[in-house]
């Protein structure tokens, strides 16, 4: 076997870098969209809003029972056709691979974040709600100032692990011929035949980013920990 040659990685670095940026951008957008939508979904269920809560439940059950890669496929091929019918022209309206990725990941992650937030809401002591009622706080203030800050603190470790999984899942965009970090590496590896080096390097990159994220959140948790809270 040839000796390892990492110089190839240095040459390829700009391409890998653009792949990495895409992975990070997709993670960030899916995180923000997923958390905002997911929180709404969780609250709709929490308030047991008639009909809508049931629809949300069904949506989450559906999303959680199909693989992400399948959702990407379906969205990429089906939604343009549906849009075509809706627009009346009958011709598919292409939404493009990049938009497909951003929208699909956001909608998909929303289902998972929603479940995390929903469980977090259930973990808040009933007495907290009663104290808010007794103080005449509005429902909005109750959730904004008292309930959600506690939910997010309780749920933050699970939210983090979900987000790390999300970051790793971004590699699935290869089915849409988009180039993320893994996609960039495998294209280069096949081009120059340096599979071992390329895959070793991106393992290190994934490892570094994921563990840095864990460390960062651990620091945040220390900084924002509820003083005196019993765990």
């Amino acid at each position, binding site marked *: 076997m040839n000796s390892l040659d990492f110089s190839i990685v240095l040459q390829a670095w700009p391409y890998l870098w653009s792949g990495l940026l895409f992975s990070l951008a997709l993670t960030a957008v899916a995180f923000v969209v997923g958390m905002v939508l997911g929180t709404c979904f969780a609250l709709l269920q929490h308030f047991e809003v008639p009909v809508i809560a049931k629809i949300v439940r069904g949506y989450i059950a559906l999303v959680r029972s199909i693989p992400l890669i399948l959702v990407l496929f379906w969205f990429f091929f089906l939604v343009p056709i549906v849009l075509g019918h809706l627009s009346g022209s009958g011709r598919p309206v292409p939404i493009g691979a990049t938009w497909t990725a951003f929208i699909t990941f956001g909608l998909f992650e929303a289902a998972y974040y929603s479940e995390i937030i929903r469980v977090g809401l259930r973990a808040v002591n009933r007495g907290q709600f009663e104290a808010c*009622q*007794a*103080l005449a706080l509005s429902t909005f203030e109750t959730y904004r100032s008292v309930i959600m800050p*506690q939910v997010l603190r309780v749920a933050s470790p699970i939210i983090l692990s979900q987000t790390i999984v999300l970051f790793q899942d971004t590699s699935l965009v290869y089915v849409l011929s988009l180039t993320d970090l893994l996609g960039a590496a495998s294209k280069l590896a096949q081009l120059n035949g340096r599979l071992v080096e390329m895959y070793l390097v991106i393992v290190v990159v994934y490892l570094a980013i994921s563990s840095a994220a864990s460390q960062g959140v651990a620091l945040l948790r220390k900084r924002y920990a509820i003083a005196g809270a019993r765990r």
Partner: protein
Amino acid sequence: MVQQTIVDETGRPQAIVAVEGVVKRFGRFTALNDINLSVRAGEKIVLCGPSGSGKSTLIRCINHIETHDSGRIVVDGVELTDRMGDINTVRREVGMVFQSFNLFPHLSIIENCMLAPMKVRGLSRAQANERARGFLRKVRIHDQADKYPGQLSGGQQQRVAIARALCMQPKIMLFDEPTSALDPEMVKEVLDIMVELARDGMTMVCVTHEMGFAREVADRVAFMDHGAIVEEADPETFFRAPSTERARDFLGQIIH
């Protein structure tokens, strides 16, 4: 909003809390069965009775944390119905202290006391801070203002909870077994604050088994059993010569 005027038959000052024929059921269990209770401004009422007798349910109905199924509850001239506006009007004037404190664990002591005055009464941060410091001083815990609830003892937390309720400057204070969750050595520090509050003229409805407190401050003791007020008397009469068998049994069990 429906404004009601209540003057009792002797023409004394109108009741600030009027509970008339209130019934509350949990499924098939009747928690409150035709309750009548009226509290005049400045009065201190102690509710006692065996567990499950409905005393906590009753005071939780007064600020609509529990909803009553029938009968009327009028607080400070506002009848409690399912209109949210009226409910919040009542809740602004009724402070409540819970058995389990229910402080907000993610907020510091001072922030616990500032939240509702700012969000509900519309005070500025500076005004709310000044008011909170005043009431924290009153409950003798101002030196802990920047700590968090989890860093305080149970007795300290309950005193903060009293200060937090007082920061809304309520007309009525409800106490739902405020000392039941405390270690014995912390009961007195909380009761002392409640006695001071009573001396200041606060209208108070207290669910408690602290009979020393009841003797010292209560104008009336209402004894409840099986969802009904069985006996209502001034503390002297109630403790010396309870008129019902059930009250005698109850007193025999709690006074050692």
